[in-house]
């Protein structure tokens, strides 16, 4: 392929924007094309379940800085295929877009409810800005909201809706909310929501949604029926990889990459963000996919820096994943891969704060905190350095300095 072709990024959201910024920084003259199916310039999603949903922010507040970047934005354009032999991104409409190198950043979408009643109005998902605006229109004080799925998006919406005066029921097949963080954290999250007046229906699945044009009832697997004015389906996210099915790239739920975020099949193809599956040292080289904001930033930036380079010169992505979730006055933060832990042990608790260490086979692989960024920082640094923080029970003075002495 001639090097005259641009570097193309598919997916104009967080990872795509960071990749474009990194490419621009590395080479101010290189032609960069960003293709995105949404009509909007890149915006940030976390407020969609929090400040924007609560009415504290409007659409203009969620725009990500960088939309004025000097690259070619092709918005409202959907990619339908990747022809690697021709070095072209196939588009839904119009001629294909040639590329020299391509960065795949098409992220995830909300997993829909596919059972009975899926077609009823009043049934929402939450991923994109228009979803958030549509859901917000229906969050009226006194209305009954049933949230299917107590993952982080479901829990955040439950909290936002509760604060807006709705009657909220949170349903999940799992025994506690935020399953990947383990039962110690999950039971405390359950207590938080119950204390705020959310009705929890845990350990039970959903059978059907009922209504007459508009949803009015959620039927659970145990036969009970919950009256509902609005339903949010928050059953997690699925990677947008279907458009790549005929590309010949290895897909395992995400785009399978090596440590440098380069496709294992093609050095001219890189991936970043929610859809990227890559081997992580904390998972002992197993491939993981991380659906969180900071990961999209870090991977987008690295993929953008790596793309113009020869494969042998590309740097590996080793950053420790981190994530946060704000619910009521509680800021839940996690570092590492607590979802892979076999034990999550509370190290400190009190005053609304908590720090817990996540271990697998005794090895530190993550940590979780409530309202304690400084407490978490020691673990984050230890994980980045491949070290451990002594488990509770070890002498107090063995605690690393930042825990006791974080302030300057």
């Amino acid at each position, binding site marked *: 392929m001639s090097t005259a072709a641009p570097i193309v990024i598919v997916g104009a959201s967080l990872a795509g924007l960071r990749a474009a910024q990194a490419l621009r920084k590395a080479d101010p003259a290189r032609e960069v094309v960003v293709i995105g199916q949404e009509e909007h310039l890149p915006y940030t999603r976390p407020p969609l379940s929090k400040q924007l949903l609560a009415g504290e922010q409007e659409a203009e507040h969620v725009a990500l800085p960088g939309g004025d970047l000097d690259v070619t934005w092709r918005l409202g354009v959907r990619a339908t295929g990747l022809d690697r032999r021709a070095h072209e991104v196939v588009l839904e409409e119009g001629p294909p877009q040639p590329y020299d190198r391509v960065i795949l950043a098409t992220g995830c979408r909300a997993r829909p409810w596919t059972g009975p009643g899926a077609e009823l109005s009043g049934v929402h998902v939450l991923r994109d800005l228009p979803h958030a605006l549509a859901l917000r229109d229906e969050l009226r004080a006194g209305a009954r909201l049933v949230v299917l799925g107590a993952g982080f998006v479901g829990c955040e919406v439950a909290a936002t809706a509760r604060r807006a005066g709705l009657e909220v029921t949170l349903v999940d097949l799992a025994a506690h909310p935020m399953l990947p963080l383990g039962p110690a954290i999950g039971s405390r999250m359950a207590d938080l929501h119950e204390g705020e007046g959310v009705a929890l229906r845990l350990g039970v699945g959903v059978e059907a949604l009922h209504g007459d044009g508009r949803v009015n009832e959620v039927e659970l697997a145990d036969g009970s029926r919950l009256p509902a004015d609005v339903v949010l389906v928050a059953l997690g996210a699925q990677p947008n990889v279907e458009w790549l099915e005929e590309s010949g790239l290895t897909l395992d739920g995400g785009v399978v990459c090596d440590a440098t975020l380069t496709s294992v099949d093609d050095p001219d193809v890189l991936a970043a963000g929610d859809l990227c599956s890559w081997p992580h040292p904390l998972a002992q080289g197993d491939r993981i996919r991380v659906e969180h904001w900071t990961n999209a930033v870090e991977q987008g*930036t690295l993929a953008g820096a790596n793309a113009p380079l020869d494969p042998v010169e590309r740097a590996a992505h080793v950053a420790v994943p*981190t994530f946060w979730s704000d619910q009521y006055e509680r800021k839940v933060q996690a570092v590492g891969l607590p979802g892979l832990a076999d034990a999550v042990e509370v190290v400190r608790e009190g005053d609304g704060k908590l720090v817990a260490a996540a271990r697998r086979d005794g090895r530190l692989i993550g940590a979780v905190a409530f309202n*304690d*960024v400084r407490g978490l*920082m020691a673990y984050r640094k230890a994980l980045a350095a491949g070290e451990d923080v002594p488990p509770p029970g070890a002498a107090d003075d063995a605690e690393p300095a930042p825990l006791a002495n974080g302030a300057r």
Partner: protein
Amino acid sequence: MKVHVDMNLCQSHGECVFAAPDVFDLGEDDVLTWKEEVGEDQRAAVEEAVQVCPMAAIRIEG
């Protein structure tokens, strides 16, 4: 160069502290403190902090 943080936006995520520990810090009750005037040697670290701040609260001047 000067570093500005919009404290109306800042949610004390601490991402900036991790990216640029010599410039940003979290004090008592996780309130952010930072150096307003920093040397060129910190530019790369502060630029990274700008990129990773989830609230887009950090601005560099100069």
